[in-house]
């Protein structure tokens, strides 16, 4: 586990998994809102250390209804920096060696592009 907490360089081809909160998911159409891809530092999980299901299960609140996947290259093409940011465990929360930050300003078109290019990797039954 200790090895996993060292930050690594994420290759362009790597898949990143992003949790989708229920408020950003239209259950009638199955569409994800672009607001799900917001924030200067947007958290995601790197496929090297996580599956879409594991990414969903890290949210214990029950608010995750889907997991979307993006490639690191796609994020970088939208002027984002992709940084491996493994999280150590603390108290009752397990370490997350997959944690990754997609860092950068996300304008409205950028958020839309991230949404349009993302692929649904997991959906709550």
């Amino acid at each position, binding site marked *: 586990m200790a090895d996993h907490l060292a930050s690594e360089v994420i290759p362009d081809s790597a898949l990143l998994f992003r949790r989708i909160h229920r*408020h950003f998911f239209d259950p009638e159409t199955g569409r994800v*809102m672009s*607001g799900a891809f917001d924030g200067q530092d947007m958290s995601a999980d790197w496929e090297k250390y996580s599956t879409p299901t594991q990414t969903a299960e890290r*949210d214990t609140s029950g608010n995750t209804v889907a997991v979307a996947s993006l490639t690191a290259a796609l994020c970088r093409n939208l002027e984002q920096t992709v940084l491996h940011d493994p999280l150590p465990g603390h108290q009752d929360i397990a370490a997350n060696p997959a944690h990754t930050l997609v860092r950068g300003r996300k304008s409205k078109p950028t958020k839309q592009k991230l949404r*349009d290019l993302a692929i649904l990797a997991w959906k709550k039954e």
Partner: protein
Amino acid sequence: MNAKTGTLVDRSGLGGEPSGVLASREVCPRTTPFVAASQQPRFFDFAQPVSTRPRREFFSNNNNRIQVAGSPLNEFEGFSHELRSLYVSGRLGLSSKMCQRLVELLALQRGWDGGMAMPFKPEEAAHTVSLLIMLNSTLPRFNEPFLAPTIAGFAQLEWHNKQRTLEFEGTSDAWSIVGSETKMRGERVYHQADVSRSDIEELVAAYRWFDGAELLWPII
């Protein structure tokens, strides 16, 4: 919304089974007896007649600040109640689903996304209702959007059809609008504009573009 129980609690500061908002304000102080939030229905049932709706209760503390499970509710108390009254009056022109969604968003607390998300701003709900009523009454064809909060506490409205999408996102003083369309060769093109909340002509033009009444993106 109580984040732990998922239960919506009336923040109106009103109690009883009002026949009208003003009337109920006159007779219902904030010291209404407590009722466990878990025993209440999750949302207002907008489709249910007023007289048969369950009594709405709420918690309050000694500081005249309404709280649910120790968390202070948003300001702009009474908006959800007003919304219900407007819906019942039949003058709002919005679906019960949309009204319920607005009430649900108004109950969001800080950190609702599990991170640092801001509560949904009550004034943003008012702007959203205003926009939807205006579009609904101005356009011959209008479909309600999917409504979501943003992590900054504003509203995001999104419409989709086969070729185009349209998004309105609230900012501190405007609607930030993005339209996207798929061109003949399959490439996706994005258009962006910031439009004053009072610029009805531009707001309507954006929706007309989405609906196919305008071929070219109309906002310069």
